[in-house]
């Protein structure tokens, strides 16, 4: 059910988080910390480039929320962003690791925002990821095109329960 100004949509949400950002900010000061946030946003914009129906919904402190029309696009962008960050870290050009989570389902638009249980689950999935990790729900993996999914390396991760969601959310650690 929608309310005036909101619209139902189906797609995939990607949450990112910079691991240890608060402590890093305390240690190096605001100016360097803001540089890192700007760099993350730039790398995310590059990962979104060319993806249909994809957008940065909002910045959440040191994390980002992105929305995609398909699970394929979300996972592809996440792996692209992971590769960019890890590559920059190996060169000493990015000081923190990134962690990410992807979930797929129905949601509601609310202005520029996207809200609903799918979004809440996506955030919880990202919370469970470690540095340099992408976790993807089984729901999102099952929504992917077979040929795109088959090239991924998937390893089972224990499921999570999300408040207000009856079924456990089963997860995979995904890499290429």
């Amino acid at each position, binding site marked *: 059910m929608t309310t005036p100004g909101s619209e139902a949509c189906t797609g995939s949400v990607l949450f990112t988080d910079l691991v240890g950002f608060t402590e890093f900010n305390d240690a190096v000061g605001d100016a360097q910390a803001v540089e890192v946030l700007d760099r993350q946003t730039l790398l995310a914009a590059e990962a979104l480039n060319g993806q249909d129906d994809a957008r940065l919904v909002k910045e959440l402190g040191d994390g980002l929320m992105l929305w995609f029309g398909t699970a394929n696009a979300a996972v592809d962008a996440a792996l692209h962003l992971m590769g960019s960050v890890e590559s920059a870290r*190996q*060169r000493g050009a990015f000081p923190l*690791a990134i962690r990410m989570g992807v979930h797929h389902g129905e949601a509601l638009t609310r202005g520029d925002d996207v809200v609903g249980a799918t979004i809440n689950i996506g955030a919880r999935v990202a919370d469970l990821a*470690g540095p340099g990790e992408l976790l993807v729900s089984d729901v999102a993996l099952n929504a992917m095109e077979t040929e795109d999914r088959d090239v991924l390396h998937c*390893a089972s*991760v224990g*499921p999570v329960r999300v408040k207000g969601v009856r*079924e456990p959310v089963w*997860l995979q*650690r995904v890499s290429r």
Partner: protein
Amino acid sequence: MASLPPPTIDRPLVRIASTSGRVELIAEDRTDVDVRGDAEVTRFGAATTITGDHGRLIVRVPAGIDVVIGATSGRVDVTGTVGATAVTTDSGRIGIERATSVDARSNDGRIEIGHCSADCCLRSEHGAVAVASCGSADVATATGRISLGDVRGAARAHCTNGRVDITMATANDVSAETVTGRISVSMPRGVRAFCTDLADGPAERPDDADCVVSTHSVTGRVDIVNR
């Protein structure tokens, strides 16, 4: 009805989801899966899915089988020898006696691994992580202390502001990072480790080095010793 597992699962697998109840998984010499406790059991392809709620679950499985377990606040104990093992809890403690590989994650719960013969991937926000022996290790916590013993493969540890202790059994590469926590790496006697700071970017490994120990702490102390 439990959600479908992805088609990437091609080996026998037992999946268990619980909320606040304790989960005990016992791997033993048997061929079937026995479930004691209030739970829904579904089978799809190679996967058996057991969904419980608040009560205690005791699940007996064939030794060596792959398992995936999730609990919210309940404790999870895996005894006997299992295959690839993945466990997630929010606040419940995780204990795994012996597995081929481990992926264990908790928010507040302590994680204790006995023996893991291959890859050991552990994540905790605030709970401590301890491994008695493992192949390779990839461990990350926010504030929980990391203690890795008898590591026989590459070791990677990331802790925001807890202490990291790594004891290597063989000459393999180590990567350890903290923001404020202390890092201690112990290598076997006679191993020539090339030590680098991760913040300095890639460094060329000398020909006579047995392994590379890369560490970085923004404000914490780093000790690398041969024992």
